[in-house]
């Protein structure tokens, strides 16, 4: 496909997004300032990545977009989960890994010990953990302290009593007397760790949280039971469930809309990263460099919104691109 034609496609897609979003201002400035991708001649080689299951879809779409520019570059994607990404980066089986969370202290330390320099993190998109309930559930919203009192055994965020009935969340009627059914992710997933850090104040999950393997399973389970609540990536929202607005404290609920995510008002927003094994002072391999430039381009960010995530603010992208061009 000709690059110009492709650009037009991305542009129209961006316009479509602009038209559908309620307040079009924030995404418009974000999309407007990001430059389109310029094809570079003579890129050959291969890329292989191991990492986040959350980002598998995103990586696939990016690699398709990349192959449209460079059909001769071979890209392999293995998404076993973020837990395996640092290991692959440390062992050298991949030079680029997608991760749904920043690397932990220990992982960074092991990397540094092995390679002598820290890994490079490049934020590439924004994701949010949304709180899902059944579509007929009338609850108005929750705040972080309530989430902690629902999902944790330790209540480190300050709640005094455990919440286990819907009545305690302000639901009247027959549902109010029902115990709350909790759905979450298995500990391999980055959502599990992120939710634990942010919503449980690093406390422990209650033993009653049903652990399911991935966001799709959580949404499916929540859709099946009126008394269920679960957390999952915002990209999995659909008509069978309702997304609860969330408040950091009190009742100032904020819905996870794109603007609330990109300005950081929604409390469970997280960047998605690509981690690189990039020795300081050395140029990146050309396919890798071009892949990153594509991801941080207008086309790459259009892919982000197509996959259900939120594109990065344009300033962040400009900063990342500067860093890439300065070093490369």
């Amino acid at each position: 496909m000709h690059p110009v034609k492709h650009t037009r496609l991305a542009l129209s897609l961006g316009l479509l997004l602009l038209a559908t979003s309620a307040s079009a201002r924030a995404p418009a400035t974000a999309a407007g300032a990001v430059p389109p991708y310029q094809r570079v001649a003579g890129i050959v080689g291969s890329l292989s990545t191991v990492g986040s299951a959350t980002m598998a879809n995103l990586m696939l779409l990016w690699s398709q977009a990349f192959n449209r520019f460079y059909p001769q570059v071979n890209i392999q994607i293995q998404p076993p989960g973020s837990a395996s990404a640092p290991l692959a980066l440390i062992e050298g089986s991949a030079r680029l890994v997608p991760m749904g969370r920043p690397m932990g202290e220990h992982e960074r330390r092991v990397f540094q010990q092995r390679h002598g320099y820290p890994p490079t993190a490049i934020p590439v998109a924004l994701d949010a953990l949304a709180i899902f309930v059944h579509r007929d559930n009338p609850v108005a919203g929750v705040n972080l302290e309530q989430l902690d009192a629902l999902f944790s055994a330790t209540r480190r965020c300050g709640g005094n009593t455990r919440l286990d009935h819907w009545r305690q969340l302000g639901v009247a009627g027959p549902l109010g007397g029902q115990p709350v059914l909790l759905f979450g992710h298995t500990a391999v997933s980055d959502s599990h760790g992120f939710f634990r850090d942010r919503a449980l104040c690093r406390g422990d999950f209650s033993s009653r949280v049903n652990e399911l393997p991935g966001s799709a399973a959580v949404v499916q389970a929540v859709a099946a039971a009126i008394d269920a609540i679960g957390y999952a990536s915002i990209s999995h929202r659909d008509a069978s469930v309702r997304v609860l607005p969330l408040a950091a404290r009190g009742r100032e609920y904020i819905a996870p809309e794109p603007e609330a995510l990109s300005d950081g008002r929604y409390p469970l927003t997280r960047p998605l990263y690509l981690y690189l094994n990039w020795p300081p002072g050395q140029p990146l391999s050309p396919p890798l460099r071009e892949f990153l430039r594509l991801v941080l381009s207008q086309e790459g960010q259009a892919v982000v919104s197509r996959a259900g995530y939120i594109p990065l603010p344009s300033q962040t992208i400009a900063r990342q691109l500067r860093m890439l061009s300065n070093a490369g």
Partner: protein
Amino acid sequence: MQVEAPPPGHRRSPPLHNRWLQLRRYKDRLATLLIMLGGLGVILSLLLLLFYLLYQVVPLLAPARIVPLEHSLQPPFQGQVLYLALDAEGQMGVRLTRAGELQFFHPTTGALRRRHPLPLPDDGRIVDLADAGEGLLVLLLSDGTVLPVQRRYTGADGGPQPTIHYPLGNQPLRLDPSGVDRLTATVEQQQLLLVSFQAGRLRQFRFDLRRPDPLPQQAFNLPTPGFEPRKLLLMPHASRLLALGPEGRVGVIPLHGAGESYEVIRASQEEISLFELLPGGRSLLLGDRSGALSQWFFTPDRYDGTRLREIRQYDPLPGPPTLLAARSEDNSFVVLDRAGALALYSLNSSRALLRSEAPGGKVDALALSPPSGELLLERDRRGSLWRLQAPHSEITLDSLWRRIWYEDYDQPAYIWQPASAGSDTQAKYSLAPLVFGTLKAALYAMLLATPLAIGGAIYTAYCMAPGWRRRIKPIIELMAAIPSVVLGLIAALWLAPFLLTHLAAILLLIVLLPISILLFAFGWERMPQRLRFLLPEGWHVIPLLGVIPLVTWLAFPLAQWLEAWLFDGQLVLWLGHQVGIRYELRNALVVGIAMGFAIIPTLFSLTEEAIHAVPRHLSNGALALGATPWQALIWMILPAASAGIFSALMIGFGRAIGETMIVLMVTGNTPIMEFNLFEGMRTLAANIAIEMPQSTVGSSHYRILFLTALLLFLFTLVINTLAELIRQQLRRRYRAL
């Protein structure tokens, strides 16, 4: 092996015939050898498997050790020590003297790298300090002023390079005109929180480290307990201040909210000699003059508040504990007493992992490098370096099998909570909920499968027309060919939501079906003989096949009507609302049905064979002597087949325990210990499948997973061996009949 006669059509000449015999002999030997090798191979691989599991598990049992690395560092230190630390992953030793000199040295050689005199006023000395975290020390000087000093490291070739930084300027701060007596400090989110005691009152100060300013942003008085604190500690999130008083008293002073009052607890009968927070800042470690050592933390009380409570007592030391060094990695800590005796503990276990008499008497300072486990002791200005080897110190028999009271929990509990990926939260490994979940799943599956499979087997082997038996048996055995992942898929996606909406009907069916079958049998007996003889012997099951669907069909409207009449319209809601029974979507009932379905073929086939193997002449004899078929079944057939049925049950149970895919997909994998039919469980097998990909090779978590694998292996090995022994016993017994 049978001897084959040479084919009659071929007349072989004698040498050819001999060669044929020889070839036959070789073939025979080869087959014997191959079969023997196969058998030995099976046993060998089983042993290898066991050996490998043990090889992975045994390091968990390794005792903690302390290994001397360097008995006496050269050259000796200079100046009187106040503070000792190992920084930059144990690559840099730091020592602060009372005279105000910061010394950086190589920890293994003791060679001085750098000396940095602090800007103290003339003939000023450091009398006390508070470690605020992030390398920031707040020094209390002899003239009552305060100086925060921060050390940082820039990593470069040739090791870390220290830099000294004065976040609030290099002029000591005078927080109070009368001079500070005691202080504590902590850094949180670029804010320095400082609490000082002077002139009989406590004051709190807050400095912003992003805009260094020697004037505090905030300063106010705190409620002050009626004693002069000997030591102050700040809990994390600036929630509370702890003050050590005389005669074993501890003051708890809330920092949030105005108008709150302090509280004083008599924590010990003796004077307290060790008063420190453990890593994470949630637990307080107290050591008193008698050598007793105890852990304290805040738990909710009856009045919606919290209370500082003694959680556990550790094995006491010979003398008063004075020094503490802790690792947050595995929640272990080292305590030294006044005479220099050392003990290593794990936070959640009362027993000391290691005790050693550090030779040479009183230790002046102690530092621990958490990542490497290196321990630096200073005694009479001589440093000695040790290494703690306790790779799996948090795993003890108690932590695996008994209730443990963990930080932030309301009460002791069995908790399975592996650390999440990339998070530094403390993992908790109690095997009790997993073993409980495994047994629960297996038990419910057996409850469903046993009556169906055994009843079916009795009927097939004893009552059914032989022509039918030949067809029915393979069909049921064919059920075993369904992969368990398919069963799991159907159960998770179709059965679980179906049960949620039709729970009452299903429960009603469980009661109604046996009753209706018995009623039908009773009615059939009462029918005129003319009608009954229309069906040949062994075919009377055909009308029953009409009864079962009919009852099933009737049960659904009946259940709906019952629900509307008795249970406010929906049984599931009524259970939660009125009885307080939780109904989880993915529960033991679904597992019981799905896994019951998976073990029915095994159970049926083995039981059926056992019953069929009972010689016919036994029951025939009983019938000839006037027993009814029922009597013959109960008193002759079943006792004779009982051992076989028992072994079938054991093998079915073994299969249910090892089953992974169904429980993984059908339950929510909740590690709870509730026998409730409507809640889920987490089984050993499913747990391994879930957590193996996330565990780091060689970590405690990894080895614990191997331990659960070993447990599972032994479970099924013992059960299957027992079943096989019983079966052989049975065969021997009936050879005589």
